[in-house]
C-alpha cells in the first residue's frame, strides 16, 4: 500500500516537472543549452577484433557512424579513438579519423620500450569519441572490449600469391624437365643476342678490347645475376678469340663473383693460362666516380665493343654517349624502366626489360634454362586471359571475380 502511494507520488512529480519544464523557460546560460543540443549522437555497434594476418600488436575497431554524421545535426567532424589496458582507464588517444569513416586500425609497435607499444595476449579496451568543430563538444561511446591481439602463422590475404607461386613453380618444373628430356623449345630471335657474338668478332679483328659493365646492382639483384650468365658467355668467346676483356665493377661482391665467372669461362674455353684476375677490378662504390672512371677507360682503351647489362641509373646516358664517342658498338640491357629510353637512343642494340632475362637464359646455352622462359610465357598468356575476363567482369559489375585477385595486407 505504502509503495503505491510512493509510486503515484513520484509519477505526479515527474508529470509536474515536465509541465514545468515546458512552460517555464530555463533560467540557465543559453550557451550551455546550445552546447547540450550540439552534442552529437554517440557511435553505435562498435566491434573490436584482432587484426588478422599480421605479427600481432594491432587491433581493428569498426563502428556505425554517429547519427549526426552526414545527417541529423551533421556536426561530427572526426572520430577520436582511445584505448586502455584496463576497463576503468586511463584511456590514451591513439588516433583520429575524419567523419564518414567507420573503421580505425590501431597498429601498435612491437618494441616494448616504444611509447606506441601494444601488448599481445593482453585485454585491451577501446572508446570512440564523436568530435565536432569545437573539440570540447564531443560524445564518448561505451567502453568496448576486452580484445586480445596476437600474431598469425599464415597470411590468408596472400593466398592469391601462394596460388601464383604454386602454379608458376609447377609450370617451371614441368618445362625444365621436358627440356631436360630433350624437347626443343623455340625462342624468337632477340636483336641484341645475335649482336653479341658479332661484336666480339669485330673486337678481335680490330685488336681492341671489350668492355663489360655490370651496372650498379649488387650481387643479389636478379638483373646482375642474369648479367653474370651473359658475362660468362662473353668471356668464353673472348677467351676463344684471345681478345682483351675489361670489367670495371661498382660493388666488391659483384667483383669477386665476376672474377669467378670469367675465370671459369677461361677454363671452359681451355685457356686458363690466359686469365688475368685484374681484368675484373673494383673502382669505387660511388655512382659518378664509377662513371668518371669508366668513361676514362673508354676513351683511353677505345674498346671495340661495350656491353652494359644489369641495373643502371642516371649514368646510363653518360656511359652510352662516351661509348659512342669512342666508336664502340654498344649493346645494352636493363630492367630499370626509367633508363631504357636512354639506352635505346644511344646504343646499337638494347634488350628491353624482360629481354635481358631471356637473353641470359638463351646465352646460357643450357636447354633447361629456357624452361623457365616457357613458364613465363604461360604466365603472360594467363595474364592476357585474366585481363579480358576481368574487363568483362568490371564492365558487367561481376565483382566476385575482381576481388579474387586482391592481395590484402
Amino acid at each position, binding site marked *: 500500500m505504502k509503495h503505491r502511494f510512493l509510486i503515484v507520488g513520484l509519477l505526479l512529480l515527474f508529470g509536474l516537472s515536465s509541465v514545468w519544464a515546458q512552460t517555464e523557460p530555463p533560467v540557465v546560460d543559453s550557451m550551455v543549452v546550445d552546447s547540450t543540443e550540439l552534442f552529437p549522437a554517440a557511435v553505435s555497434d562498435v566491434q573490436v577484433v584482432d587484426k588478422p594476418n599480421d605479427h600481432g600488436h594491432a587491433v581493428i575497431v569498426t563502428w556505425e557512424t554517429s547519427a549526426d554524421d552526414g545527417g541529423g545535426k551533421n556536426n561530427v*567532424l572526426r572520430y577520436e579513438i582511445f584505448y586502455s589496458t584496463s576497463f576503468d582507464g586511463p584511456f590514451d588517444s591513439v588516433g*583520429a579519423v*575524419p567523419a564518414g569513416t567507420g573503421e580505425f586500425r590501431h597498429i601498435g609497435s612491437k618494441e616494448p620500450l616504444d611509447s606506441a607499444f601494444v601488448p599481445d595476449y593482453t585485454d585491451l579496451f577501446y572508446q570512440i569519441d564523436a568530435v565536432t*568543430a569545437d573539440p570540447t563538444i564531443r560524445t564518448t561511446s561505451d567502453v568496448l572490449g576486452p580484445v586480445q591481439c596476437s600474431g598469425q602463422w599464415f597470411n590468408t590475404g596472400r593466398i592469391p600469391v601462394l596460388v601464383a607461386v604454386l602454379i608458376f613453380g609447377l609450370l617451371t618444373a614441368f618445362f625444365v624437365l621436358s627440356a631436360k628430356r630433350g624437347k626443343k623449345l623455340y625462342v624468337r630471335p632477340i636483336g641484341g643476342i645475335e649482336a653479341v657474338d658479332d661484336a666480339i668478332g669485330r673486337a678481335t679483328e680490330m685488336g681492341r678490347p671489350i668492355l663489360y659493365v655490370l651496372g650498379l646492382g649488387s650481387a643479389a639483384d636478379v638483373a646482375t645475376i642474369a648479367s653474370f650468365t651473359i658475362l660468362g658467355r662473353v668471356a668464353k668467346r673472348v677467351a676463344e678469340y684471345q681478345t682483351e676483356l675489361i670489367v670495371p665493377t661498382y660493388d666488391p661482391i659483384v667483383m669477386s663473383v665476376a672474377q669467378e665467372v670469367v675465370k671459369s669461362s677461361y677454363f671452359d674455353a681451355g685457356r686458363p693460362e690466359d686469365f688475368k684476375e685484374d681484368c675484373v677490378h673494383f673502382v669505387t662504390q660511388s655512382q659518378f666516380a664509377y662513371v668518371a672512371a669508366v668513361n676514362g677507360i673508354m676513351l683511353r682503351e677505345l674498346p671495340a665493343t661495350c656491353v652494359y647489362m644489369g641495373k643502371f641509373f642516371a649514368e646510363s646516358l653518360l656511359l652510352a654517349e662516351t661509348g659512342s664517342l669512342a666508336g664502340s658498338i654498344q649493346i645494352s640491357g636493363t630492367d630499370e624502366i626509367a633508363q631504357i629510353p636512354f639506352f635505346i637512343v644511344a646504343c646499337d642494340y638494347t634488350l628491353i626489360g624482360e629481354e635481358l632475362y631471356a637473353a641470359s637464359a638463351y646465352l646460357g646455352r643450357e636447354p633447361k634454362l629456357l624452361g623457365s622462359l616457357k613458364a613465363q610465357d604461360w604466365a603472360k598468356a594467363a595474364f592476357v586471359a585474366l585481363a579480358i575476363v576481368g574487363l568483362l567482369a568490371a564492365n558487367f559489375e561481376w565483382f566476385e571475380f575482381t576481388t579474387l585477385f586482391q592481395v590484402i595486407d
Partner: protein
Amino acid sequence: MAYLGVIISMLVIFGGLAWLLFRSIKGREVERRVIFVFIFVAVAAPILFPITFEEHASPVVKGLFDHIDTLPPGSRVLISFDYDPAMAPEVQPMANAISFHCLDRGHKVVFMSLWATGQTLLFNTLEDVIRPEFPDLIDGVDFISTGYKAGNEGVLNVIVSDFKKMFPTDVNGVPLDSAVIFDEINSCADFDLIVALGGGRPGPKEWVLFVGDPADVPIGVGVAAVVAPQLYPYYPRQIIGMLGGVKGAAEYESELAHRHERFKNMAQPGLKMMGPQTLAHIVIICFIVIGNVAFFRSRRREGR
C-alpha cells in the same frame, strides 16, 4: 648593356643554328662538340643576361590565380610549405609569388609546414617577400607563421577540426589565442583557401584527402614537375588550380606581372629559370631537325 648581351647571344645561337642548317642541307654532319657549345651558350646566356619569354597562364594555373584574385580582401588563406631544399628551386618561386599575391590582395595569411625542412624555406619566404615588400603588415594581425609540427597526416587530421590543438603557439612561441588573425579561425574549415606546396608525402594529395574533401575548403597546389602528372586527375573537382614545376611558377609570375603593377619590378625567379629551359629545349629541337635534314640529304644522295 643587358639588352646588347641578349641580342648578341640570340644572334650567336640562332645565327649559328641557321648556319648549321645550311651546312646540313649540303649534307654535312654537325660535330658533337659544336652541339655542346650551343647547349652551354643556350643555358649560360639567360643566366648572364636575363632573357625571359612571354608565358601564358594555362587554365590550371589560372584557376588558382583567379581564385586568389577574386576572393574579397581580408579572406583567410593557409599556405603550407611541405617540401625540402631539393625541391626548393622549383617550389620556392611559387611560394614567393603566391604569398606576395595573397598579401597584396589584402588577405590574412597563415603559414605552416608539415616538413621539418620546410620551416627554413618558410622563413626564407618571409624574409624575401614580406619584410621588403610589406613592411607595414603586422605579424599576428595580417599574417602569422605557425612553423613546423611533427606528425604528418596526423597533424592534418587534428587541424581539420581544431587548429590550436596542434598549433597552440606561433613559431615565436606567442599563443595563437592572443593573435588577432586567429579570432575567427578555429579549424581548417574556417579558411577560404588552402594552398599546399610540395611534392612528397605528406603533401598536396594528403591535403586534398584529409582536409579539402572532409572540411570542404578549396585547395590549390604547387608541386615539383615530376609529381604534376599524378595530380592532374584531381583537377578541377578537388583542386581548384595547380602549378606544376618551374613552368607553373613562371606562368603564375607572368600573370601576376600582367595584373599587378608592383610585381613587375620584383625578382621573378620562375620566369628567370624558364629562360635557360626554353632556350635549351629550342636548341635541342633545332638540332633534331638539323639531324633529320642531314639524314634525308644523305639518304637521297645514296639513293641516286
